[in-house]
């Protein structure tokens, strides 16, 4: 009798384990804390933190996670661009990413920069890149363990692809989409930035000479897609939310914000969770609003920071 119960239990547990494993191994672009905690010792899983606050990773990160600094590791510090192929190739080697590795990215501030990291990984054709749903906020709220030790991993052997330009919108693309209306443009900034009342969120130093938004852009602030605990809302809720704003995936989508990193969060959910065709405009408003000869819509009437 005992053995039957034990066998049944074991089978049940096995099924649960398989189900949680397939959660990450399957098509879902997200992993939850429960799955990640169970799979921390899996050599095929690499956990990478992309946080904006300095010292956050060092003072306690998910056990085994490695640190990536977004504004030096993931960008080209000379040209305004994402990291070069060679630089990114070097980074994936250092992180120990192989062809069959599942990369789980997470970070502070609702995964803003982790989502930006996911976008850069995708541009270079790295498969199996997931976000930890809810990022640091949810992991800490669930009282899961943190560690201060540095992970040491075997260098990875993955060869990254040429950058996939289909995932990037440049100034010419967003201008063409604005004129032809053959793509949906989504401005994910706050309503006050969208209207032109303010040029940038308080304290932001990278500014534009004009405020407002791209003609034809729809405003869905990124935060609407997030629940109180920092996780993404369900796919059904997201679908409804964006459909109500006129974004249903029937046309290609371009997302932008101020510097291209909050918009990565929306890029991630629209392309990875809802499966739409989405480009991220990493030049975003700091490029558009400073360009000569492009029209803006500014309902607030601010011009050169005056009225």
């Amino acid at each position, binding site marked *: 009798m005992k053995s039957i119960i034990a066998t049944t239990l074991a089978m049940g547990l096995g099924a649960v384990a398989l189900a949680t494993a397939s959660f990450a191994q399957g098509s879902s672009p997200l992993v939850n804390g429960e799955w990640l905690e169970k799979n921390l010792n899996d050599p095929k899983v690499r956990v990478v933190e992309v946080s*904006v*606050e*300095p*010292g956050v990773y*060092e*003072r306690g990160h998910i056990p085994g996670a490695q640190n990536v600094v*977004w*504004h030096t590791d993931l960008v080209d510090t000379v040209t305004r661009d994402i990291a070069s192929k060679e630089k990114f190739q070097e980074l994936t080697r250092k992180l120990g990413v192989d062809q069959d590795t599942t990369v789980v990215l997470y970070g502070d*501030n609702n995964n*803003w*920069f982790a989502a930006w990291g996911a976008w850069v990984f995708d541009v270079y054709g790295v498969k199996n890149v997931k976000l930890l749903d809810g990022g640091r906020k949810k992991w*800490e*709220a669930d009282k899961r363990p943190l560690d*201060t*030790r*540095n992970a040491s991993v075997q260098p990875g052997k993955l060869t990254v692809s040429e950058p996939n330009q289909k995932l990037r919108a440049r100034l010419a693309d967003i201008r063409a989409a604005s004129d032809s209306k053959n793509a949906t443009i989504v401005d994910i900034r706050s309503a006050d930035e969208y209207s032109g009342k303010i040029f940038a*969120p*308080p*304290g*932001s*130093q*990278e500014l534009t000479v004009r405020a407002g938004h791209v003609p034809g852009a729809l405003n869905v602030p990124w935060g609407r897609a997030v629940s109180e605990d920092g996780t993404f809302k369900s796919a059904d809720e997201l679908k409804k939310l964006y459909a109500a704003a006129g974004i249903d995936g029937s046309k290609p989508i371009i997302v932008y*914000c*101020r*510097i291209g*990193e*909050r918009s990565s969060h929306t890029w991630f959910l629209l392309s990875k969770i809802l499966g739409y065709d989405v480009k991220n405009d990493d030049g975003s408003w700091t490029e558009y609003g400073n360009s000569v000869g492009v029209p803006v819509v500014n309902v607030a009437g601010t011009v050169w920071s005056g009225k």
Partner: protein
Amino acid sequence: MTDGTSVETLTGSSHRDEQAPGIDPALAAFADRKVSVAVALAIVLAIGVSAYVLHGQSSPALAISLLFGAAFGIVLQRARFCFFCMFREWFDDRAPQGVLGLIVALAVGLVGTTLVFGAWLPDAGTGRLPPDAFIGPVSFALVAAGMVFGAGMAISGSCVSAHLYRLGEGSATAPFALIGTIIGFILGFISWNTVYLAAVADASVVWLPRTLGYAGHLLVAGLVLGLIAYAVTRSAPQKPAEHARARDQATAIFVDRWPAWIGGAIIGVLATMSYLRVAPLGVTAEIGSRARQLAGALELAPTRLQGLDGLRGCIAVVRDALLSPNGAFVLGLVAASLASALVAGQFKPQRPRIDHVLRGLTGGVLLGWGAMTGLGCTVGTLFSGITAGALSGWVFGASLFTGTAVTLWSGRRLGLLPRG
């Protein structure tokens, strides 16, 4: 003491010889101030409860900062750990104990911080700097900031951290010195962009472990500290001051002044733990950001401080939170030093006289300008800087004590500053 409280001596405060009959000897030291002790216990309990509540409200950084601040305040108060007084004891009387206490703090902090860095940045030569450490540009502006801060210490009788713990002792000077500090910070904001473009922008940020390696840095820093220790000991009077032996352990801990080296050793450990968990020790971040809010409201300071308001993506450093970790740290420091002073019988509020007000405000303004321009004070730029391996810490320290010495000497010659 320059703020009118009893003169600090190395033998600690005196206590009454007679003992009330029927009292437990362990409690005899507090027999005459039961109410003070009860209030002190209530304060400590309130700090503990606040930390517990904050932690429960998902603010662990605030909770732990409050506790670190409280521990720091108690040690400062018990050891009279004041950069200025320690220097002055040597400067005036060639008594080396205070300076040696500071050296112990630096030595322990150096070892502890290096241990932390070894885990965070296994290779110091990669070109990266440890996160949020006090490693600043070394420039003429830093020297000027140190000299001015040192002058402010000599005039007001303390550095900023010591004014904070003396606030808990009821000092008449401390409140004015802190008001002066805020004014000085605002003056620092007003002059910052000019100073930055003239001196700071092109200055080098030198992190010693990058060139010397961790071990080499520890050796060099240890050697320098050893030489300073040798120099101050060599010039000490032949007969060291006798430490009065406390009659019991409770008096030794709660009433008498702790030996400076014990205070220093504890501060070195505290600094290491604080850096590991929250941030390096510092007491002016909150004062600075409040001063900036005030300057903004009064439209006195430029809205952008070059080189300080850097790129942080979409995360702005806007102080709209009621309390930052550094604010919690400072509150914990003041509250716990009050509790500590109450227990020791050293809470002696005074009615401020005109000289308290003048010297507090004048010295405070200099402290504030020096701390803003030097990007920190004796605790941040000097102590946390040196322990983190920043050349800026050493330069600021040398400038600061030079400024103090020059101001003390000239101020006394001119009859403006009393001796002792």
